[in-house]
């Protein structure tokens, strides 16, 4: 029982630490602006710049880190686990959801939750950096590689279980869209640039990719707060019960995180890496996958999957998930 007693205060302090970090506070600020109907808004092209910067910086830093760490068994374990999660999560998610919503929505939501949210990942790295826990650069590669498979799997499931137009999906075009998607391309490309240019390159870019990082993340999360809250009304307007959607949007990250937690604890990965993999599993895409779904599966109402992932799962992971998963990892390792 002493374990539990020690656990409680530690958890509290981690949550508090998380909640008083500038990125989280700016997210809350943005959400409040939207709730109070303030006219604060971030123009679309500005948001685009912020997200280009974040993808480039995280990719580059990951590549530099990768260049300076020797390949290891843990790395191979971590990468394999990441890919395994990207393949398994969308499959069971689809079957879990199939009864609560029409097939197209279930397939699109499965793809959304099988993929990852780069900003949730980035926020988790900045959480780790703030409390001084190390993490390995290869996880940036893992993140990039986890983005696309779920798109393919989701659409294959739709093709198999869907009716009518489901046959019209053009696989080669789809594969290109999934793997040459702008954000996947930028992360992987920046990773490569970081890897090739190494510490010399990093010295030239340090103010840019490190000094600015948290600040830009703050501005971007301010925008995400606004956008996430706006999506809540979209959830209300879908044909499916909003209670069901919100519940699933809270249950799915917990299920996915539990699966990942079990695996990282079994594999005995270092705390930082374990947390990041868990966060990847628990997070849901709201940029790459929704864009791909609009193209390939337009009959699925984006109010469903985008609302769930952006308005519920994203804030949940940011505010509660990250310190919670961390807490659990510390407890068991």
């Amino acid at each position, binding site marked *: 029982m002493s374990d539990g007693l020690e656990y409680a205060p530690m958890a509290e302090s981690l949550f508090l630490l998380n909640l008083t970090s500038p990125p989280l506070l700016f997210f809350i600020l943005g959400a409040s602006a939207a709730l109070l109907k303030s006219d604060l808004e971030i123009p679309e092209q500005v948001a685009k710049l912020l997200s280009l910067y974040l993808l480039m910086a995280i990719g580059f830093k990951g590549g530099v880190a990768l260049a300076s760490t020797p390949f290891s068994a843990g790395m191979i374990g971590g990468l394999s686990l990441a890919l395994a999660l990207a393949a398994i999560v969308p499959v069971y998610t689809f079957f879990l959801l199939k009864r609560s919503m029409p097939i197209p929505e279930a397939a699109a939501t499965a793809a959304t939750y099988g993929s990852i949210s780069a900003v949730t990942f980035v926020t988790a790295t900045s959480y780790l950096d703030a409390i001084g826990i190390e993490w390995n650069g290869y996880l940036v590669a893992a993140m990039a590689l986890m983005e696309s498979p779920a798109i393919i799997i989701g659409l294959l499931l739709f093709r198999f279980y869907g009716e009518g137009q489901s046959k019209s999906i053009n696989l080669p075009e789809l594969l290109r869209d999934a793997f040459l998607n702008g954000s996947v391309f930028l992360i992987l490309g920046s990773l490569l640039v970081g890897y090739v240019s190494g510490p010399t390159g990093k010295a030239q870019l340090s103010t840019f990719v490190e000094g600015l990082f948290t600040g830009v993340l703050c501005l971007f999360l301010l925008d995400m707060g*606004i956008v996430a809250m706006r999506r809540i009304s979209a959830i209300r307007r879908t044909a499916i019960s909003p209670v069901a959607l919100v519940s699933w949007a809270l249950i799915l990250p917990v299920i996915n995180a539990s699966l990942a937690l079990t695996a990282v604890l079994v594999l005995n990965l270092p705390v930082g890496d374990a947390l990041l993999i868990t966060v990847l599993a628990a997070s849901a895409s709201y940029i790459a996958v929704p864009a791909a779904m609009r193209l390939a599966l337009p009959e699925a109402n984006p109010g469903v999957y985008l609302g769930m992932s952006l308005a519920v799962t994203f804030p949940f992971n940011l505010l509660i998930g990250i310190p919670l998963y961390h807490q659990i990892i510390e407890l068991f390792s």
Partner: protein
Amino acid sequence: MKACKRLEIVIEKPLAKKVAAALIEAGAPGFTQIDQASGMGDRGRRHADDPTGSSTNCVFIVACETEQEVVKLVESIRPILTRTGGICLVSDAYWVRH
């Protein structure tokens, strides 16, 4: 000046590439595309300010010469509109030759 038809299509941005490709395939003599529009319709308010681009609309303007061309263009994009929403207006105009 020559009588012509003017098509105006509003559709969400993620589908813009598909519409452009369909127009080109159906033989449109040209088109103009205005991105960054917002709007309101059956599917509610769209704000054009999220980083995903998924709530942004875009407007296509296509001038073409004959009724048959219009029909062909409209048929080429109708399946996209049916599956996703958006609007398509056709009107009469004169094309200034230069």
